[in-house]
């Protein structure tokens, strides 16, 4: 992890085409979102269709606090994480009554409710959106985008570390028990509610953290972009394509799909990139439910047994 961070530092020194930083930012944001989704979706077995809602709440918390008090970015990220984490906690209590497909539909509803609130909230620009002015100073980096790049890289590394801890610790085994059979887990003394609340809160907080720097990255945010369905689709598609069983799957999925999206957007068109994500999602669910990680594992197993 530290190596990745140092590599990032070197990257800011070497690369001088700003496009690389923009593209990498998008991919790293996707890494956080995919990792966060997988904590609930992959480890715990609850599908969240409302990722865009948590992301959007993060982005709008940052905009509101920036406009109201002019807080610096690190504080905004903390606040956004807390806000989306709280909403995640609320969603966790929903799982008491709502399970399986109903939970998935409820999260979708949650996202639309928050989008409607943002549309009707005049202070942050309402339906027409809000502009963010980029600061004049950027610490010790050469440019604004390089600073944002290092920021999102650190956040992505942090998310992956948390996700890996969750999957390998006792908590992870508890979550897996819930995924496989919630009632059996409860009967065996697994504190299902507590674990589910941890899982939904961490997921929400991570998505909020991913959303907080977004207004500063694009400098103009409206509800339609902050709560975009593509964010939700990507957050589901990337772990599913990478493989939901491990912490590595979402990272691989995000890097592969995100990287591909950047290339297709530049070389063909942004609509084509949306289509490719949809087709890949459907293709992997039907043909390779274990994702890229699963395919590689199967391949290695076959080679070993030969």
């Amino acid at each position: 992890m530290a190596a990745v961070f140092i590599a990032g530092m070197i990257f800011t020194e070497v690369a001088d085409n700003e496009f690389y930083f923009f593209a990498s930012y998008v991919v790293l944001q996707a890494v956080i979102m995919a990792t966060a989704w997988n904590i609930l979706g992959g480890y715990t077995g609850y599908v969240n269709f409302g990722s865009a809602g948590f992301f959007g709440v993060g982005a709008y918390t940052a905009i509101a606090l920036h406009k109201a008090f002019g807080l610096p970015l690190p504080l905004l990220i903390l606040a956004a994480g807390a806000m989306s984490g709280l909403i995640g906690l609320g969603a966790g209590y929903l799982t008491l009554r709502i399970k399986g497909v109903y939970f998935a539909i409820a999260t979708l509803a949650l996202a639309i409710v928050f989008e409607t609130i943002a549309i009707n909230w005049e202070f942050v620009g309402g339906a027409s959106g809000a502009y963010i002015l980029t600061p004049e100073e950027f610490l010790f980096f050469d440019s604004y985008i390089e600073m944002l790049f290092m920021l999102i890289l650190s956040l992505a590394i942090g998310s992956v570390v948390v996700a890996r801890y969750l999957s390998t610790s006792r908590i992870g085994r508890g979550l897996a028990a819930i995924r496989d059979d919630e009632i059996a887990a409860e009967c065996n003394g697994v504190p299902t509610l507590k674990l589910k609340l941890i899982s939904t809160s961490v997921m929400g907080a991570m998505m909020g953290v991913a959303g907080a720097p977004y207004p500063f990255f694009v400098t103009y945010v409206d509800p339609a972009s902050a709560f975009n369905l593509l964010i939700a689709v990507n957050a589901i598609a990337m772990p599913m394509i990478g493989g939901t069983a491990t912490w590595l799957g979402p990272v691989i999925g995000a890097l592969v799909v995100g990287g591909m999206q950047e290339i297709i957007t530049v070389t063909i068109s942004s609509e084509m990139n949306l289509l490719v994500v949809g087709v890949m999602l459907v293709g992997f669910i039907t043909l390779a439910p274990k994702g890229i990680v699963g395919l590689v594992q199967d391949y290695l197993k076959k080679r070993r047994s030969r």
Partner: protein
Amino acid sequence: MVLELFLNAVVAGILLGGFYAAVALGLSITFGQLDIVNIAHPAFVIVGSYTTYIINESLGLDPILAGVLATPIFFGAGVLLYRFYYVSFERTGQESLSGLAFFFGIMFIVEVVLIMVYGVDYRLVEADYIGKTISFGFIIIPIRMLAPFLMASVMTLGVYLYLSRTFNGRAILAVSQDRLALQLMGADPVKIKQLALGIAVATAAVAGSLLIIIGPVEPSVGRLYIGRVFAIVILGGMGSIGGTMTAALMIGVVESLVATFYGPSWAPAVGFIILLVTLAIRPQGLFGRA
């Protein structure tokens, strides 16, 4: 003055609700009866709108007639979709969550393809009666709301009669309850489910034609209907056609009142909020089998 506004909003809400029933009808069959979580249903409705738009623009046919003419193609598409769904998910027994993500992907693909072909411009249809109104005293009824309401009622009644009076219809009602008993009665569950999904998708063609009569349509409009239709189906008690109609009228009226007194930008959230509250408090719906 307030009373007039209120009554007009209620009447508009009833008309809107009738139309919502047409949109929710297909989901009521797939989700309520077959336990297939077809989250892509609203996207199919939008495809119905575009099909109507194409027929209306090229041949000048009445939009509702165009929607009805498109039903056989939609029925066929529904049958194929079920075949695919059955082979990929249902047979291997991992239908619920993978199936849900599958339909989510289908929904996204449909929307993107429509955007790629037709762009994000709003499309509309032409017919003599669109734009005319009838008034009873101070209550004003636009025909572009009344015609969809009537057609939706006819279709809902038709599906209700089909499901309750015919052998295949009753088999559809039975398939999710007891597969084995159905097989003993000489009906193949796979064929019955295939028929049911075909009918469900076919209703999307008509519902789509009604949608584009009510107002102009662009590809992402479908998303707003996800909350509405799921709220209607769950509130209506999962698959009861009468319940679906009642729940649709309720949501139509509440939305219309909210739009009149609080502003139209709040209306889309109504369905979703009702859905969340229903799920949290009374998941079996108002008329549900518990």
